[in-house]
């Protein structure tokens, strides 16, 4: 049976190791599966400053009761 002729075994095994572990993997590691593009949710970029969330009376030095 020609498969049992061990003189060719070294060449075959080295060629297979080269192909399987290097060449084919170089082809397959480039495969990328990006997520399909979807629009991002709209978020407002300005935040209400803490003192604007509730109306507070605006105190100015000149409006205080004169003493």
């Amino acid at each position, binding site marked *: 049976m020609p*498969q*049992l002729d061990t003189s060719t075994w070294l060449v*075959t095994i080295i060629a297979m190791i080269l192909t399987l572990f290097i060449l084919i993997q170089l*082809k397959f590691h480039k495969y990328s599966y990006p997520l399909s593009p979807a629009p991002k949710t709209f978020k407002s970029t300005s935040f209400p400053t803490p003192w604007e969330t509730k109306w507070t009376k605006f105190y100015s030095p000149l409006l205080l009761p004169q003493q």
Partner: protein
Amino acid sequence: MNENLFSSFITPTMMGLPIVILIIMFPTLLFPTPTRLINNRLVSAQQWLAQLILKQMMMMHSPKGRTWALMLISLIMFIGSTNLLGLLPHSFTPTTQLSMNLGMAIPLWAGTVITGFRYKTKASLAHFLPQGTPVPLIPMLVIIETISLFIQPMALAVRLTANITAGHLLMHLIGGAALALISISPTTALITFIILILLTILEFAVALIQAYVFTLLVSLYLHDNT
């Protein structure tokens, strides 16, 4: 007759140069590297196929086992494409060579076993003794489990070699018989030819199934050990 029948399994050399190297490397040419975001049809189809196989195979593994994803997808594509190319007339199929299959099976199996020993030593050793065995049977069962562990790579290699070789031999024999029968009795030749067609369809299936089985078993051994 003997020499003629097995002559397609001799590793091809041309004037002393081992062209078997080129034959083994040839399937890599059939998988072009994707270089664009949206690729051409061939690359897209191969990417889709790879994703299908990956999702099916890697679902049962832990994150540690999933690091083997590239190895397993390369393995199944390599064996599948090599087997399918071997169905072309007068071609040489590298997976009929016991040397190549042993070279694939032993390192991959050893990798899974060593991974298991390194990360889950007690659980790996516990595989040698199934749960709930009666105490007097323990020594014999450990021996049996050890033998069954060490036979796994041999079985992987020999299974692939024998299946592909047997299929190719049958096709040679039945094809030769159909050819010889044409001059003797065309009806029998027609029946033999139909058998040959059915066998070829079977061989297409076997080519793919054997790739799948090899990879699945390696994946199973991995699952046991991660």
